[in-house]
């Protein structure tokens, strides 16, 4: 019997990180810009994607990868709006992982083909904790918070707000009915993630959507250049 120490210094999620690197390469080869959409359940990921596509559809051909524990409700909604969509059912897993995205991308490739897609929205499982650790090969992660959830979410879930490349505050049209302290919310984000631009929007009413879409187009163009 002998004892020894083996030094590993390896990322715990190394398998996912390898897959994400492969996906990132594949997206770049086909000039596909990928957006990982994060939020809690019900804050408006689906309606934000639809409203964004509505404004950008003349410039970019979009597809959606839907992640949910169960059901194909969101994928059906996307297809009804004329957007190619693949539904992933995680069966209980609280986030999407690289291998699931790979399968969904294969399906899109066999369907419309990756060269016929400019932008993929990945609608992650509604969750403010776990998706942060799983790189999906995306160009941009966005965090959507909705007014009814409250201004204290960045304090309670700093990781996801820190990780986001842009933060959208959705449902601002109903703000008068809620005690959402915009100053307190901004003060926390000024320290937590000062670099990410913030947009106040109402996906269903259209408020702020043009500003958000203009910024997003700039990011897509910059990635293509």
């Amino acid at each position, binding site marked *: 019997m002998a004892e020894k120490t083996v030094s590993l210094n390896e*990322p715990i999620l190394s398998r996912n990180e390898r897959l994400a690197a492969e996906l990132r390469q594949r997206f770049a080869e086909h000039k596909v810009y990928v957006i990982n959409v994060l939020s809690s359940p019900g804050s408006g990921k689906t309606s934000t994607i639809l409203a964004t596509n509505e404004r950008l559809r003349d410039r970019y051909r979009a597809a959606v990868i839907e992640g949910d524990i169960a059901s194909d409700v969101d994928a059906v909604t996307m297809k009804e709006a004329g957007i190619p969509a693949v539904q992933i059912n995680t069966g209980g897993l609280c986030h999407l992982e690289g291998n699931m995205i790979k399968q969904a991308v294969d399906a899109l490739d066999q369907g419309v083909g990756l060269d016929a897609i400019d932008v993929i929205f990945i609608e992650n499982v509604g969750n403010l904790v776990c998706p942060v*650790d799983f790189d999906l090969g995306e160009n941009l992660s966005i965090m959507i918070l909705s007014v009814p959830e409250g201004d204290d979410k960045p304090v309670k879930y700093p990781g996801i707000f820190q990780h986001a490349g842009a933060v959208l505050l959705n449902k601002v049209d109903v703000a008068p009915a809620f005690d959402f302290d915009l100053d307190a919310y901004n003060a926390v984000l000024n320290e937590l993630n000062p670099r990410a631009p913030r947009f106040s929007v109402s996906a269903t009413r259209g408020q702020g959507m043009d500003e958000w879409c203009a910024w997003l187009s700039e990011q897509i163009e910059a990635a293509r250049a």
Partner: protein
Amino acid sequence: MHELGIVSGVVEVCAKSAREAGASRVLSVRLRIGDMAEVMDESLRFAWEALTEEEPLMRGATLEVEDVHPASICLDCAEEFEHDRFHLRCPVCGSADTVLLRGRELEIASIDIETEDD
């Protein structure tokens, strides 16, 4: 669920590395986890007990966790500073242009194994 996924990754990598090193069992595993990874120690240990039980090489292995406190560097004034999970702005010049140097680690540092020597 978050911690369960992390631990299943740890068990997979450690068992594979131990097997490659000719181990008869794994005695302990050392992880490096950044404060910003939002990992709960209690859940981590619960998942550890559940999952190491299922992997013969890992049964009974102890788990050691080294917490890594966050630090960033300012791209404007080059100040290196430690911070908590909420304040990433440069404390010297107030710049938002900072890059995280450490604090989000999710790494397996090393494993202690037992080998059957001749």
